[in-house]
């Protein structure tokens, strides 16, 4: 039977493993955080996970959780529906995000109000199934995320492959768009959607501002293809072994993986071996 402490000392509130419905504390000094609910003065956990305490705030973090957006998050989403003046975007969250027609850039960076003719050709910008690189602009009243792509680096994703990972493994950081030393671009969406693609220089992107909504891939050589596949497998492997996915950890995994063929990376023993050496290197770097 689980222990339901009614009067726990502040020190042992944290770092306890709880199941839904177990009482965490009845001390009225604490505040309820994520993964908890209160009844009277008692705080109960509502998910199975580890109790965390920051000063007076008690929250429970579960192993798996859906992405909950914050304003300013850089995310990758997939268009699920074209609606009136907006696209619905699957962002791995509790409900679909919304990308308003008014919050995208027009081809060529023209600045004007969106007209009715833009509304009619919405599918020429984003169609169902397209992947979009966007930023969270605001919330709607019901908690749905409103996205925007009003920057030259945001927009439609091409020339690469998609990997989905646990959202809690991708920490928020200053930049989420990285060019790896192996000549591969990677977008680490905070929502756990990751895009690995061929490197295209910023100058070239700006020169092709007319074609930002093109559906056509640029020519990709075999070597580039293999590098993309290798990076994608590295991300997959870090996800499977629950290692934080950052630029550094992906680079480490890539370097460690060079001894194996890209297609073998996900076999169980190779993956375990690589993840351990990546973790060792991360630890070494931290100390």
């Amino acid at each position, binding site marked *: *039977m*689980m222990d*339901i402490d009614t009067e726990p000392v502040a020190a042992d509130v944290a770092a306890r*493993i*709880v*199941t*839904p*419905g*177990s*009482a965490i504390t009845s001390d009225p000094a604490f505040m309820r955080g994520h*993964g908890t*609910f209160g009844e009277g003065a008692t705080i*109960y956990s*509502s*998910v*199975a*996970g*580890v109790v965390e305490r920051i000063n007076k705030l008690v929250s429970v973090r*579960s*192993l*798996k*959780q*859906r992405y909950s957006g914050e304003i300013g998050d850089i995310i990758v989403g997939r268009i*699920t529906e074209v609606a009136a003046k907006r696209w*619905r975007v*699957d962002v*791995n969250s*509790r*409900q*679909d995000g919304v990308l308003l027609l008014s919050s995208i850039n027009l081809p060529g960076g023209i600045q004007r109000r969106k007209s009715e003719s833009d509304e009619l050709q919405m599918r020429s910008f984003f169609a169902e199934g397209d992947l979009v690189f966007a930023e969270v602009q605001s919330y709607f009243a*019901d*908690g*749905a995320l409103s996205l925007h792509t009003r920057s030259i680096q945001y927009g439609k994703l091409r020339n690469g492959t*998609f*990997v*989905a*990972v*646990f959202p809690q493994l991708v920490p928020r950081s200053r930049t989420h768009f990285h060019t790896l030393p192996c000549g591969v671009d990677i977008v680490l969406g905070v929502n*756990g*959607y990751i895009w690995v693609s061929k490197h295209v220089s910023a100058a070239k992107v700006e020169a092709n501002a007319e074609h930002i909504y093109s559906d056509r891939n640029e020519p990709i050589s075999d070597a580039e293809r293999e590098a993309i596949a290798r990076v*994608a497998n590295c991300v*997959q492997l870090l*996800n*499977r072994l629950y290692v934080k996915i950052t630029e550094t950890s992906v680079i480490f995994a890539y370097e460690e993986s060079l001894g194996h063929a890209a297609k073998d990376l*996900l*076999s*169980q023993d190779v*993956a375990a071996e690589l993840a351990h050496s990546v973790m060792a290197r991360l630890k070494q770097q931290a100390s």
Partner: protein
Amino acid sequence: MATNIIDRRRINGPQRSVEPLYAQSGAAAADPFARGRADERALDQVRPIFIKTGPLAAQPAEHEALSSASAASGTAFYEQGKIRISCAVYGPRQGRRSNARAGSFDCDFRYAPFACSWKRRSHVRGADEKEISLILEHAVAPAIRLEAYPKACIDAFVTVIESDGKAATIAAAINCISAALADAGIEMYDSVAACSMGLAGARWVADCAQPEEDAALCSMLIAYMPGADEITYILQHGKTTPEQTDQAVQTCTDMCARVYAVICRYLQSSLE
């Protein structure tokens, strides 16, 4: 006047209705458990339980690109004696019917075609499967914090791989869904634990296997949240006296608390 006209084209029922003949209860009926149970369990003992969460999601994909987005959010495999059940929970995700106030919980319960040893089931969903789906929804939904998920829906897909006793299978399905929901990290007030009993002679017998259930006169299923001390569902077939019902509710909730402890202990150890 109209009663005198007999419709000859139909098969008419009898003019008079009578109370069904219940099998003799109490001392008159032979007690099938006079010499204990076939598997030597105590009368109030639940069959041994095995739980595992994440069996369907965490399979290492050797060749295909298994994305965690397309896989279920939470899964569980549950065994209780011969009963084997798997459950996959998807969500919270954007629902088709969106309710701005609270999320919705839907359940899809199915028997595998080979789940019952005594008959082959059709792959088409039968009426009883629909009914059990509803029972499961009603039993589990009160535990989920649906108001925390506006406009979202949570789906549970339950497959019975092997069944042994109908009421016991439903109870096991509820336990399996609870474990899968916890694995999915869905916010809940409490985990629901369920237990079933059958009335044989004058005694209640816990967690009846199919032959025991056939011998029992009445069955009772209770879904219970031990942490909150609330019963979420009671299902009874057959006739009992108020005293017997009272006794059944008491014993059933006690057993649910024991099943709950097993589930909680597993969930805690799985997180370590």
